[in-house]
């Protein structure tokens, strides 16, 4: 059993309330930080912990905090990104639903570390029940003296507010989120300036994911060095993984980074294997934006070693044979799933969610969706496959925000690893409408890396 830092008390009845959360050791980190540590001490502990952004980018949180500009007389903001919208990812919803005080406690620690007196939690609008839960948790914390003026007699003041989004994936991008929080369309901003210099209302701002903020609680409690002992290499600590698709036990799991992918999929402690006795075909390991990998490559590296659930191991081999940990949205596809259809579905998603600011993304995502649709529905041409690759390459790297890359990678990787399935759809259009291509050779052990 791996250590649980965030979900240790998930099954305790009433853990969603202030009282039970506190009885289980909650708000100790706030006491420790506000009474015994300076704000710089807190930043230092988070740096030592090696915590990396849990929203997808994996940027070191402590470093992000230390970049925050601190001009005199200008307010600073901590904004929590709870716009969880990456297909395959539902860990933040889980955490906010069941242990809302873990986020509130983390918000107090983070705000104190950054010197913010007003902080916002931007929650996607569809999570209205979670918004109510957080509002209740904030009221409870405030009533107990952990929010408001002069918290615990420390002289530090903090208010936290919850802001609903409006149903736009793009608002998970930090500058689009800030635009939205200012009451505007969620069009990402050109960087620089980075939010650390000019973020919310033009003031220095840090935007962190729900899980990153919650992770600062055990870091303050146990110390950064202790936290860094968990995990493997530069992938320190625990990570919440959202597991979905064709598995026996979908759900949210807290793992110690470094667990093998094989154990994660097949052990009863986690996914419990592939549902209905089927075989594994492919995995999207870090949310829909990351490259899809066939069974052989997700379980093992190209050199035959086991692949691990860590930032480094999942990206081992670059995009030729690797993928990314991303937000930890682990989507499992069994042998009955159609890669072309799944890729078309994701492409439609990105086309729908493109904000329309940059032409390569606005137009390119639509073209990819249309071309994939015609291949899936039996009207594809062989040249369409390379056309897709070509369009994806022209989107990638040519847009203001990473949505363009996120739209391009799933298409490029699906063709890279499953080209024969795309070709089969073109050659056998009638058959492709009747049945799926199946498992083919994707689960076979790798012969030599060059063949991949």
């Amino acid at each position, binding site marked *: 059993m791996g250590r649980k830092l965030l979900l240790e008390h998930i099954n305790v009845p009433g853990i969603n309330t202030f009282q039970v959360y506190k009885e289980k050791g909650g708000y100790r980190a706030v006491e420790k930080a506000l009474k015994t540590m300076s704000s710089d001490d807190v930043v230092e502990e988070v740096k030592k912990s090696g915590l990396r952004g849990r929203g997808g980018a994996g940027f070191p949180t402590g470093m992000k905090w230390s970049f925050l500009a601190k001009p005199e007389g200008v*307010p600073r903001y901590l904004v929590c990104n709870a716009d*969880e*919208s*990456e*297909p*395959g*990812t*539902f860990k*933040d*919803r889980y955490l906010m639903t069941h242990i809302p005080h873990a986020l509130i406690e983390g918000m107090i620690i983070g705000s104190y570390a950054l010197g913010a007196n*007003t902080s916002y939690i931007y929650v*996607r*609008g*569809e*999570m*209205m*029940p979670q918004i109510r839960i957080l509002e209740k948790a904030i009221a409870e914390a405030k009533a107990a003296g952990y929010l408001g003026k002069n918290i615990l007699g420390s002289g530090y003041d903090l208010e936290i*507010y919850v*802001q*609903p*989004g*409006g*149903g*736009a*994936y793009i608002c998970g991008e930090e500058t689009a989120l800030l635009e*939205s*929080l*200012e*009451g*505007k*369309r*969620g069009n990402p901003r050109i960087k620089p300036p980075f939010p650390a210099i000019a973020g919310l*209302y033009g003031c220095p701002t840090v935007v962190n994911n729900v899980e990153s903020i919650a992770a600062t609680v055990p870091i303050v409690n146990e110390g950064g060095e202790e936290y860094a002992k968990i995990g493997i290499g530069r992938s320190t600590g625990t990570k919440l993984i*959202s*597991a*979905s*698709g*064709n598995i026996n036990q*979908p*759900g*949210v799991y807290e793992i110690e980074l470094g667990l093998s992918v094989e154990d994660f999929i097949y052990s009863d402690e986690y996914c419990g294997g592939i549902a209905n006795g089927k075989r594994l075909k492919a995995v*999207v390991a870090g949310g*829909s934006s990351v490259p899809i990998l066939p069974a052989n490559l997700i379980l093992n590296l190209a050199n035959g070693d086991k692949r691990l659930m860590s930032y480094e191991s999942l990206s081992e081999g670059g995009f030729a044979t690797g993928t990314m940990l991303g937000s930890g*949205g682990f*989507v499992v*596809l069994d042998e009955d*799933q159609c890669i072309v*259809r*799944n890729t078309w*579905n*994701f492409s439609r*998603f990105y086309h*729908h*969610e493109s*904000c329309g600011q940059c032409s390569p993304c606005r137009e390119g995502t639509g073209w990819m969706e249309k071309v994939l649709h015609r291949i899936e529905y039996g009207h594809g041409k062989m040249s369409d496959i390379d056309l897709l690759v070509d369009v994806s390459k022209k989107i990638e790297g040519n847009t203001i925000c990473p949505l363009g890359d996120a739209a391009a990678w799933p298409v490029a990787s699906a063709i890279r690893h499953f080209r024969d399935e795309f070709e089969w759809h073109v050659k056998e259009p009638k058959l492709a409408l009747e049945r799926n291509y199946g498992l083919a050779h994707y689960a076979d052990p790798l012969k030599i890396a060059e063949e991949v």
Partner: protein
Amino acid sequence: MLRVEEVQSVEFSSALISKFDEIVSRYPEGRSKSALLPILHEVQAVYGWLSSAAMDKVAEYLNIQPIEVYEVATFYTMFFLKPQGKYVLEVCRTGPCCLVGAEKIMDYIGEKLGIKEGEVTADGLFSYRGVECLAACGYAPVLQIGPEYTFYENLTPESVDQLIEGLKNK
């Protein structure tokens, strides 16, 4: 894109206005435009959709141009710009849900209600539409119903039947 049916005039209740005031108090002086999305959610929860008259009234309240409200209302998919059924069944149609049968559930809802996506049933009770990932992939297939966005998980044709019958008799 902006197709709104004419509604003559809208007067917000004093309860709604005081809710707006509370929302505006969350932001620094001079930043009341930040209240726009939360306020539009409140308005939609009362009226079921956002008429141009209602949006104009919001603009007036926040002292911004009506276009600033329209551009936001048209950008975010949660805001309805025409009347909907009393219950809008929003079914997730993105990848992970489709791996476990979301498309069949959506077809089933359409058949059961006898309407197409985006239409309203004759009794005014129901509409449905596909929406993108609702961050509940582990409980797929899922749907949500506003304005409180209650979740219905692990859907089957039987659970859809129960849900719809339950709402009819509510």
